[in-house]
């Protein structure tokens, strides 16, 4: 009767994935930044919860772009 709304399938929600330790290090090294210099997202964000990411994890968000086809965005999870 009642079905739960699956947010990850919504048109406006892009794909979220957690980066492994190595991937994370590679990213920070390539950009020459510290974790705190990444864009942030809260640990109570619905997609973050769904992916079961914790504070300090870096997630990669893949979204469709009008000008570039696909584009990546990275966020580090922090305490709200």
């Amino acid at each position: 009767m009642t079905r739960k709304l699956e947010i990850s399938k919504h048109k406006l929600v892009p794909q979220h994935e957690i980066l492994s330790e190595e991937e994370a290090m590679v990213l920070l090294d390539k950009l020459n930044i510290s974790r705190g210099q990444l864009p942030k997202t809260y640990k109570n964000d619905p997609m973050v919860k769904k992916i079961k990411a914790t504070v300090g994890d870096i997630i990669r968000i893949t979204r469709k772009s009008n000008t570039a086809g696909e584009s990546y965005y990275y966020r580090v999870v922090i305490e709200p």
Partner: protein
Amino acid sequence: MRILPKKIDGIKFGLMSPEYIRKFSVLKIITAETYDEDGYPIEGGLMDKRLGVVDPGLRCGTCNSRVGECPGHFGRIELARPVIHVGYAKRIYKVLKSVCRSCGRIKLPDERIGRYRQEIKTARKIGKNIDSIIEDLFKEAKTPKKCPHCGGEIFEIKFEKPATYLEDGQRLSPADVRERLERINDTDSVVMGFDLDVARPEWMILTVLPVPPVTARPSITLESGERSEDDLTHKLVDIIRINQRLEENIEAGAPQLIIEDLWELLQYHVTTYFNNEVAGVPPARHRSGRPLKTLAQRLKGKEGRFRSNLSGKRVNFSARTVISPDPSISINEVGVPEVIARELTVPEVVTPLNINHMKEIIIEGPYNYPGSNYVERPDGNRISLARVKNLDELLEKVKPGWKVHRHLMNGDVVLFNRQPSLHRMSIMAHEIRVLPYKTFRLNLCVCPPYNADFDGDEMNLHAIQGQEARAEARVLMRVQEQILSPRFGGPIIGGIHDHISGAYLFTMNDTKFTKSQAFQLVYSSGIRKSLPDPLIDENETEYYSGKQLFSLVIPEGLNLSYKAKICRKCDKCLEEDCKYDAYVVIRNGKLLKGVMDEKSFGAFSGELLDRIVKDYSTDDARIFLDSVTKLVINAISRRGFSTGIDDEDLPEEAKERIEEILRNAYKNVRKLIRAFNDNLLEHLPGRSLEETLEMRIMQVLSEARDKTGAIANEYLEKEEKKRRRENSARIMAISGARGSLLNLTQMTACVGQQAVRGERIKRGYAGRTLPHFKVGDIGAEAKGFVKSSYKSGLSPIEFFFHNMGGREGLVDTGVRTSQSGYMQRRLVNALQDLKVEYDNTVRDTRGVIVEFKHGEDGADTSRTDWGNIVDVGKIVRRYADQRGKK
């Protein structure tokens, strides 16, 4: 004065302790007196006496410097009783509420306090803002009850009015408050946000008031000879007076009431001194009634310190005058009046290579152009050439390493700007051309980015002082580099008005020139190529066609085809064989078919110009524009181009047809209204009956007007052919030079429906717009449809409605400017520190990443093809052409 440059590591804001204030103040202010009888500042009072000098000639008591040099020194006032600093009133309240009145600890168990401490520590590490954590702490700690540490009772409810605290009905004097704050221990202070290096809670209450130096509150001497004191000085005088009275009263007898009253008055004055716009406090006023401008007012928005003196400043080496057009100078140049060139200088360093030239310039001096105004020694000392006595002596001393401040000369790079500076093309680098008379001159093509017209506009000029800045301007900001807009990738600098109509007339198939005419035209464009062979026409005479001559200006090897603006958008485009000559074909740098118009090198659409900038260079584009405009203007000047009322004349037949269309339209409107009244009208989906009616009526009338316009256009074209005389208004509209078919329609055939807020005219009298109509009349005329053309003239009723519509236009232009101005300001403030790094990442000044790839695609929009990153067709065609040649 040479000081070693120092690098700032950081800035911290804190509170001043009474000890600190006493330490750095130069003197203790005692009297409220400012000047004595002779007008001498001095005394042990508020002015001078080691606080700083404003009068030329006097020397500072503390540092012995003269008026320009002394930065001023702080003094102090010892307050008879402590006073609340109004800026911290809210914070003091929060702290008081969170702290036990007996033992001074925060009213929370130790674990909670520890938790908060941890949070603050981690937040500081990430760089997150502490404020929210402290707010949470205050919220939690204000719940009354008892103190968990000492068991002391807490009395609830502490009110706060402007600057007073009530506990349980009793007033807490500032001294009482200070006592409580003093009891708070260091760890608790840190948790409440106080950085111990620079702040302790009790310092939020003032015992000693620092007195700003005289330089920060100078007096002004009016023409009448009187001295008028600065607002701050007035306020300080008030404070000192009350303070003295308070002190005397405390010393002598002390009816508690009087003391309290004076104390409250002192509090009022100190509050008002910091901020005269506090809610609930009557602002202190001048004798004239005007409220005083005190410390907070000096800093606050728009006219305050930040926005008006720091984010933006008045600068030296700048100039401003009226602008006027000059088609003969390059787009990169700016015409500068000699008077200005003589006043603005550029520092040029003397080297062994230029020392002779420099000496000549020095000899010319400030009154001959080109000369110089100042000579500067290596130690920084400037010598005015206007007042030097022995020129030869000076010339001897001049060696490499000295600087000469010489007049602005041809070729110097300057920044030229028109306000409002809404995009980066509002300031561009130009090369100077010194000209007679008193206006700045600019090439017409460069008007669109500045949004300049010549109805009295003024523009600003900045003479670039340093070599690095000069190089940056010349490489990055020159007009020719800004031809393509970063907004959409197309040109925003290009031909306007007569350039376009001139080009159209010039490249029409019928334009022929004799050899001598051709020579004149090509020479005027600045091109120095030799003429090609002439064409032969039917009568066996030689001639040159407009297209041939135009081709001389197009760079070699260019291949391009596109539809011109005059294209009729026929159903089946004949392309190269278009009978209107609307398909432009350029092969190998020669214009073979089609006319040049707005679509070719106009300011916003110029396809040809766009191609030249992208495939050749900005230099080539500049040369192209300069040549094309000169050529085309010359051509149209010789040919002549004018307009008159007969450009809007229509033959009887046309007028009859127009009448008929409008008559029919009126009939349809009446039909619609009848249907509506008889309830026979069909709803449009989702709209009420009234809405549907209005929409249908507007549709009918609008179509009618357009049909009218089509008829007018048709007949105007026929007339052109018949009379063999061009219709200038029509030419301007179709070539895109100025005006549109709508303008033509309104002038010749029918002005059309007037609208306010998107709807037909509704307001006026009750139930009708004007008393000339019956109540309830919703016909075409009654609601603002203007049947007449501008040429035939509007009836008084039509005129009135037209005025209503026009007024709305003017009003919303005004409103729109300020709305968009505010939006622009917010955007600029948020975005101006972002930079695209070498790895295409967008970061702010802290290194925080904002975008991982600029625009998600890393593209520079000005180099794109009207937004598309790659024009595949173009590349394919280029390959095909090359292959074809082989």
